[in-house]
């Protein structure tokens, strides 16, 4: 069975179980958002799929392969991850070129130079950035590099952990456009973890709302757009998020101005 399938996933750190019987299906070509507040366990689910959280019970299947507890090179070529922090996810002493060639070297793929250039082009990063160090790039450029690195091995699935929350609004728009375009062009499957419902609305087809380690609701994005989420918590989350969104004009208190 293709796609990502999770059944009764319980992930624990030490003695605390962070997620409780999470079951989730992501079919090929779709973009699913995992939404929730900090501590809801949404990033933990992502880490378990990627192989970074190893203490879990249940079943995780990626593109027909059951995931073990350790990093699987075969899954590595199919499923990659983009991290939240563009400052922490690039090795500070390696040039962009070295960072991008690394996955190719690990998997013994030839033609590295051509592939690096191709991927830089893909994420619309000029070739003159190729031999720079991360500290010579802006946040948005770093995130482009991180996306390029995730795409180096030609994966079918991309796990995105808050890919734009550390970026400025105008840069966020560029990265969101980029992610949307790449997905369209390469028919990728996204699993996006985010707290930003507006990002969900732009980038995803479906969303799963998580709270305290459980999925409380799975809905279509059209339900989000038309304010038709069913669960009380989802509604609350939506209400709080509207504050940040231009779609809702909260009346400013003008009584205070003199």
């Amino acid at each position, binding site marked *: 069975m293709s796609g990502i399938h999770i059944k009764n996933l319980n992930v624990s750190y030490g003695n605390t179980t962070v997620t409780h019987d999470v079951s989730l299906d992501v079919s090929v070509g779709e973009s699913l958002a995992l939404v929730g507040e900090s501590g809801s366990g949404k990033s933990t689910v992502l880490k378990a799929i990627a192989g970074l959280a190893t203490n879990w019970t249940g079943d995780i299947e990626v593109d027909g392969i059951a995931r073990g507890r350790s990093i699987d090179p075969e899954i590595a070529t199919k499923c990659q991850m983009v991290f939240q922090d563009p400052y922490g996810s690039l090795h500070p002493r390696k040039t962009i070129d070295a960072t991008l060639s690394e996955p190719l070297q690990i998997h013994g793929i030839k033609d590295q130079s051509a592939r690096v250039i191709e991927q830089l082009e893909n994420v619309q990063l000029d070739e003159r950035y190729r031999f720079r160090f991360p500290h010579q790039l802006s946040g948005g450029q770093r995130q482009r590099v991180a996306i390029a690195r995730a795409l180096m091995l030609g994966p079918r699935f991309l796990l995105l952990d808050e890919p734009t929350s550390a970026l*400025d609004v105008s840069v966020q728009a560029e990265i969101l456009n980029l992610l949307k375009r790449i997905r369209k062009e390469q028919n990728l499957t996204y699993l996006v973890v985010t*707290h930003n419902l507006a990002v969900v609305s*732009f980038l995803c087809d479906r969303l799963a709302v998580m709270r305290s380690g459980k999925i409380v609701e799975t809905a279509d994005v059209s339900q989000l757009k038309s304010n038709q989420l069913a669960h009380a918590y989802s509604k609350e989350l*939506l209400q709080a998020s509207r504050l*940040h969104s231009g779609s809702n004009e909260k009346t400013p208190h003008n009584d*205070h101005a003199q």
Partner: protein
Amino acid sequence: MSNLLDIDNLTVTFPTNNGPIDVVKGISLSLGRERLGIVGESGSGKSMTGRAILKLIRSPGRVKADRLSFDGIDLLTRRERDMRAIRGARISMVMQDPKFSLNPVMSVGDQIAEAIKTHQRLSPSQVRAKTLAMLKSVRIEDPERVLGLYPHEVSGGMGQRIMIAMMLVPEPDLLIADEPTSALDVSVQAQVLDIIDNLVTSKGMGLILISHDLNLVASYCDRILVMRAGEIVEECAANKLHAAQHPYTKGLLASMPRIDEDREWLPVFERTSGSQT
């Protein structure tokens, strides 16, 4: 009515290998007892402006201004010692992350009590009563329990409320809040901002809310300054934000995705090849 804060031609300069760089380029603003929002992206100089008012720019940074006066006091000529009396007592600042602003080895109650004791001479029981009252004023339901907690034992939202309680102890005339909620979850953000809003409104304080979030600032302020690259590009009333004139402000507003998003692509700024992001 005299202004609470008057700034004329404020410049903040940092030296670099390629010569000095102005991170704030001669901005002027005045503030009454109102809520002013300063919005901008990273590198716009918005935080530096907030820090410059409190003279918290560290060397080698330099602050220059034609006028920087607060309630009739010329801050430019004040020495560090006088500034310390003004900071906290008359102007308070709430920073982004409460984790870094609270002392990790002191209990919450002790820290607030300390803040009270530096400004007022009260008996221990009065200090305790006031501490509890302060915590209640930031809508902490069980202040007795929170008193004994250490900063690592409280959540982000709670920590930020404690910070606000501490900042408001001396009843300042001006509160500068620099991204007070960006480290918090959306549902908590609204609570914290409501608390700030209520306190500011009821006490008739001035508020400068510094944030990258246009809509958030629009909801909680009376007036908005949009900053870009050290300059103020637009000034408007908060409720007129959506009628903003400057292309940069318009661009910022348009580039934000919305919850009821139906655009295929988000509009982005044209960038010169030198500043591609």
